[in-house]
């Protein structure tokens, strides 16, 4: 093989690796941010209303349980045959990604109410105020903080383990998720209130596109489909899904607009 041909192959492999990594990092980071904003809203509402001790205890125990789950199931997944793992992960990501994309498109077009962190915060505060404070440990506050962090964290962990294991980059995926959690946590400390200013729907739409992209790619890999260009196909799929999403938003906005004119006439 000539030197120039070898050089071309090296450049192609480097491009494939970096494009796969960029999509992986983007998907894990954005998904972790979205889920952690939701968890933080609940923890802040609990902390402000019932005191920080129970809020921190609930958060801490949830993080411990989540860590134990990662330690138990993360390494075990490495032993599952890669094709089966990728098919399962691809299927899960395809379903989950389409759900996120659908929800964010409906919210962007006004067919579904936007996820309002302010409303969730107020609702949680009202619920907590309605229940009397018990002496000693605040069980309700603990359970609420635990559930908020555990359920949102579980979604992050499923994404980190599935995306990370299938791409053979579990360490990178975990590190990116940890950075996202710390960043969102720092934002929470700085603003010390609900995170309604975070453009959650735009984030959710981006994550939806990336999850459907990975879902398509890995379902195919699991079924031994040979994608032209290997990992670089991820960028092409992401571009196609982004354009399709944009077209869906435009079409639905036109439909909703026409309906409003019809109602007012």
């Amino acid at each position, binding site marked *: 093989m000539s030197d120039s041909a070898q050089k071309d192959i090296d450049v192609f492999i480097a491009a494939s690796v970096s494009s796969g990594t960029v999509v992986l990092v983007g998907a894990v980071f954005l998904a972790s941010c979205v889920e952690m904003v939701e968890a933080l809203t609940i923890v802040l509402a609990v902390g402000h209303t019932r005191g920080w001790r129970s809020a921190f205890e609930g958060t801490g125990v949830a993080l411990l349980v989540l860590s134990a789950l990662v330690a138990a199931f993360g390494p075990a997944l490495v032993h599952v045959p890669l094709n089966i793992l990728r098919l399962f992960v691809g299927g899960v990501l395809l379903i989950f990604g*389409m759900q996120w994309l659908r929800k964010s498109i409906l919210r962007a077009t006004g067919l579904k109410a936007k996820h309002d962190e302010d409303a969730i915060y107020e609702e949680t505060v009202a619920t907590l105020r309605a229940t009397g404070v018990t002496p000693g440990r605040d069980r309700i506050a603990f359970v609420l903080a635990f559930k908020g962090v555990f359920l949102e964290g579980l979604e992050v962990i499923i994404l980190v383990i599935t995306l990370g294991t299938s791409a053979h980059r579990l360490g990178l995926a975990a590190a990116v998720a940890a950075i996202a959690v710390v960043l969102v946590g720092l934002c929470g400390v700085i603003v010390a209130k609900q995170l309604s200013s975070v453009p959650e729907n735009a984030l959710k739409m981006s994550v939806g596109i990336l999850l459907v992209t990975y879902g398509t790619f890995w379902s195919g890999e699991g079924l*031994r*489909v040979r994608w032209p260009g290997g990992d670089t196909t991820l960028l092409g799929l992401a571009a196609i*899904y982004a354009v399709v999403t944009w077209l869906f938003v435009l079409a639905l906005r036109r439909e909703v607009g026409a309906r409003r004119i019809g109602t007012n006439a």
Partner: protein
Amino acid sequence: MNDRPSVITRLIKGFGQFWWDFLVGDTPELFVAALVTIGVTALLSEGGHFNGAAIVVLPVLAVLALASSLLRALRFSRRK
């Protein structure tokens, strides 16, 4: 007699409920569509001669699934 289910029962129920909400939730059509998409691609890729078709069919079926789910949501909102 205590009628409350045991901790194990509640854990199993909670675990099942989590995965049901996670994968099916209020959009069962997307769950079914993903299974159909994977099934059709599996049939195409099984022969080994239809790799090109599988590459096209997989994303196209995913887009169609999303479109049909959005149309369902639109129809539902019209009824309200």
